[in-house]
């Protein structure tokens, strides 16, 4: 078994992840399911790190295990539902099981056709990818290939990805925000009976987070700015910045955060991030380049074409960071306060 | 001898443009009706302009736009088409006069809609007459179905709605369910939908397919009223008299049979028909059954309009049977029977409307003795009956003559017998009406005491068309010349 072409830890992690995933879905208690789901996400981060996908793992840690879990918590907190009742639809469940089983079998039918795990000569690893690895330095002076591909080679995807975050933010505001003019809505009674445990009471948590938040924010800025040389970039940094504010609101009070971050501020900044990205692209057109061809900016940015690309990447990463940070805050505020912007998790 | 000319297109379009103008003049009835006459006269004039050329053997063609590869919105004027268009437009004038007489006194404000739809219907009838291919024909056919719906439901009472529903369901279901797929199969098989002399099918096309297609077309153009898809016609009789007379004696039903003539001659080809006994057999049997059954049903109807409707169903089958004979004189008879029956039947329907207006009588049993009160109307009715039965000196005689000739030409003696039986039945259900009206004693003297001829605006058109029944007999030769030109193009074997 010594020359197996895979990592031994991975098989273990994978099996564990599988267990966690199934447990998360099988648990009756929703809060428990959310926690197990968070653990599952962390396990995934580990797996991806061992596979060499540090940027993805980083993002998953911030987004999947961090923010997503908080979102689910906020929802559960707001509704006060802790356990799912046993829904009696056995026949339907079996039917759905058959569908899933059939699909799975169909997917596995392609198994012999797949390249072995970790094969460097598989089509995926030998078609386009080598170009990126070989040329990232010469094209943009950026050692972190992921950053180059993200913001330059496939920069359009990233612009759209930022747009997706922007849309999610607007969408959630428009879905959840209760119109103040008509807010004679009767308050759901679950809010009047919050869970027995109130996190705002804990002194330790307050003090700890008060100390942590500045460091988190500093770290996030570093992640954005140093994304060219180390794992990270706009997304990760943005999410961490957002998370620092979310942490504040969890440990202190949502009201506190709400006073500072009004809808107007959040929306304008979120839109601004996308705007920066799109405008950098437009600037390239004005400078006789193609859309998002940062090399065209070499007359305004310092350095040669490759450096222009490097700086262009930094500019758009800042845009991404702004959008992601404020959308995360916006989404959290809405989910946590159920759109009423007064109190909540 | 084809000649490209846009006149056919304008002829079709004029009455549609008139429809637009009519709907703009809703508040000025005089101007509105003047527009109709003007449109009709222009249309007639343009038709007459084309006539000499057509008689010389010219085919006027015009393609407006290509709709599908090889198939355009195209027009082609030949003898039969011109004749049909001529009849529809000519009869439009008396019917309009009659409508004015009928509707104006009622102060019915939906008259504008009535006239507008009427004009569109005339447009599409002429469109069918001038179509150069199946697609164009189908388009006008459908426009006709839709534009006549408001006319059928003009009264907007329960009965009218019911009749209208039946009308649309029968016509749309059959055309979409049968004629459309048949057309698509033709296109898929041959890549063409043009009406051509020898038909579009290649020799190797199987006879079975052709037979199936023929049946689909026969029933698909349900306006021809072949049984069992005939029930819409009696149902549509709820419409006002001008509609029943022009549309359900001339335009709509004749469009149905005209379409079948076109398809049989232009798509299947007369030669192919004549050489495929199974094909002609099926057409003749369907038409023959309808012919006899409809005549028998007509005999049993007491409602005058219903009797006329069943009579129409029977007479339409004459035309289809004529085509099914696949001989030159059979087709000539079929083509001639369109105008001949048209003038006769329109007279009868106008009379039926007039009788109802004058005496309130709907049922034949109520009509004893009314001839003395309304002699002009009943005289017109008598002349119309003669024409439909086919007795000289009316036009019906000529067309039936050709049809009977056709049966002998193609050795279908049984069809000869059917024609004769049916003509006898025609006489049996029409002549007693006129006889009783003039000679029987009124059953309800008091009721009809005050009855008198309706307004002159209604009487004059009736008399005009009744005279027409006689005129077509004397000018039948001119009409035959048109038909001959059509036969030269489609029915003469090379």
């Amino acid at each position, binding site marked *: 078994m010594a020359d197996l072409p895979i990592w031994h830890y991975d098989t273990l992690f994978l099996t564990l992840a599988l267990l966690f995933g199934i447990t998360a879905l099988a648990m009756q208690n929703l809060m428990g399911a959310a926690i197990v789901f968070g653990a599952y996400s962390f396990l995934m981060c580990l797996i*991806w790190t061992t596979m060499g996908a540090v940027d993805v793992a980083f993002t998953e840690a911030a987004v999947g295990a961090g923010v997503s879990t908080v979102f689910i918590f906020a929802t559960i907190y707001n509704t006060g539902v802790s356990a799912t009742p046993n829904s009696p639809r056995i026949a339907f469940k079996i039917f759905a099981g058959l569908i899933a089983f059939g*699909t799975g079998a169909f997917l596995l039918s392609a198994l012999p056709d797949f390249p072995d795990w970790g094969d460097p000569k598989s089509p995926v690893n030998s078609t386009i990818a080598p170009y990126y690895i070989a040329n990232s330095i010469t094209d943009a002076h950026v050692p972190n290939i*992921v950053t180059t591909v993200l913001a330059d080679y496939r920069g359009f995807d990233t612009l759209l990805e930022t747009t997706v975050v922007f849309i999610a933010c607007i969408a959630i505001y428009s879905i959840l925000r209760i119109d103040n003019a008509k807010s004679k809505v009767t308050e759901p009674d679950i809010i009047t009976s919050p869970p027995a445990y109130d996190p705002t009471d804990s002194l330790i948590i307050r003090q700890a987070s008060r100390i942590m938040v500045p460091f988190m924010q500093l770290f996030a800025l570093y992640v954005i700015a140093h994304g060219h040389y180390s794992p990270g970039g706009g997304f990760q940094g943005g999410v961490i910045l957002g998370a620092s504010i979310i942490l504040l609101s969890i440990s202190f009070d949502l009201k506190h955060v709400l006073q500072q971050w009004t809808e107007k501020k959040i929306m304008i900044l979120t839109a601004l991030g996308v705007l920066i990205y799109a405008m950098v692209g437009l600037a390239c057109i004005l400078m006789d380049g193609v859309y998002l061809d940062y090399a065209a900016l070499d007359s305004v940015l310092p350095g040669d074409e490759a450096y222009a690309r490097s700086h262009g990447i930094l500019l758009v990463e800042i845009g991404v960071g702004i959008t992601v940070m404020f959308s995360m805050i916006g989404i959290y505020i809405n989910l946590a306060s159920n759109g009423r912007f007064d109190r909540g998790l | 001898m084809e000649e490209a000319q846009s006149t056919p297109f304008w002829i079709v379009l004029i009455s549609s443009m008139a429809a637009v103008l009519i709907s703009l003049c809703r508040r000025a009835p005089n101007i509105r009706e003047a527009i109709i006459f003007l449109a009709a006269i222009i249309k007639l004039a343009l038709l007459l302009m084309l006539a000499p050329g057509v008689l010389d053997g010219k085919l006027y063609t015009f393609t407006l736009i290509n709709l599908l590869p090889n198939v355009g919105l195209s027009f082609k004027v030949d003898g039969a088409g011109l004749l049909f268009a001529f009849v529809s437009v000519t009869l439009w004038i008396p019917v309009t006069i009659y409508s004015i007489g009928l509707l104006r006194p009622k102060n019915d404000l939906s008259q504008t809609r009535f006239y507008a739809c009427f004009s569109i219907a005339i447009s599409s009838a002429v469109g069918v007459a001038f179509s150069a291919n199946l697609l164009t024909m189908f388009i006008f056919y459908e426009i006709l179905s839709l534009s006549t719906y408001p006319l059928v439901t003009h009264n907007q009472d329960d009965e009218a709605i019911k009749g209208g529903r039946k009308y649309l369901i029968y016509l749309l279901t059959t055309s979409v369910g049968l004629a459309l797929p048949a057309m698509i199969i033709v296109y898929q098989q041959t890549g063409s939908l043009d009406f051509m002399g020898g038909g579009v099918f290649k020799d190797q096309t199987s006879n079975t397919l052709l037979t199936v297609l023929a049946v689909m077309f026969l029933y698909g153009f349900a306006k021809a009223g072949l049984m069992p898809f005939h029930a819409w016609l009696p149902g549509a009789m709820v419409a006002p008299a001008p509609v029943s007379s022009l549309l359900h004696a001339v335009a709509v039903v004749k469009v149905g049979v005209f379409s079948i003539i076109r398809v049989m001659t232009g798509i299947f080809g007369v030669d192919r028909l004549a050489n495929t006994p199974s094909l002609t057999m099926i057409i003749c049997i369907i038409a023959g059954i309808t012919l006899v059954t409809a005549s028998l049903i007509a005999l049993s109807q007491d409602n005058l309009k219903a009797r006329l409707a069943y009579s129409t169903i029977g007479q339409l089958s004459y035309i289809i049977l004529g085509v099914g004979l696949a001989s030159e004189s059979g087709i000539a008879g079929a083509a001639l029977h369109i105008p001949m029956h048209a003038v006769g039947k329109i007279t009868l329907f106008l009379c039926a409307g007039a009788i109802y207006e004058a005496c309130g009588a709907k049922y034949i049993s109520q009509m004893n003795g009314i001839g003395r009160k309304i002699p002009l109307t009943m005289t017109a009715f008598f002349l119309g009956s003669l024409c439909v039965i086919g007795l000289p000196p009316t036009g019906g005689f000529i067309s039936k003559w050709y049809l009977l000739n056709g049966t002998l030409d193609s050795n279908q003696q049984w069809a000869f017998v059917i024609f004769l039986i049916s003509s006898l039945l025609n006489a049996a259900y029409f002549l007693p009406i006129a006889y009783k009206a003039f000679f029987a004693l009124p059953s309800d003297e008091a009721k009809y005491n005050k009855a008198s001829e309706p307004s002159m605006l209604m009487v004059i058109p009736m008399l005009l068309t009744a005279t027409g029944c006689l005129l077509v007999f004397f000018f039948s030769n001119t009409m035959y010349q048109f038909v001959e030109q059509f036969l030269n193009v489609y029915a003469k074997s090379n």
Partner: protein
Amino acid sequence: MEDIIPKFNYIVVVVLMMTGLWSMLAQGNLIKKCIGMAIFQTGIILFFISIGAKNDALIPILTEGANHTFDNPNIDKVTNPLTQILMLTAIVVGVATLGVGLALAQKVYQQHDSFDEDEILNNQTK
């Protein structure tokens, strides 16, 4: 065993995804549906990442090292960056969808006082 071990990752991926799929279809609870959706998505991400993995390779950040130089990297020893980019996008899309889904679930809860699909359906038809 010899056939399965080199492709173990694919099997785990398929099982994970199908669990998520089943959960999206069959679970009556809206939150569970959302978690199922997230698990389905991580399954896909895992699939992409594992096809981009290489044996004994380094992370896709170039350094001066024994195996390769800064300017002329040894391509077989650097993990595939492309699949990672794609999955970064997928993660972000995933969290956006999850957020919107949870927001909708909250609204549904406000109306029907329940997360259970059957109960909601009963409420609506009432």
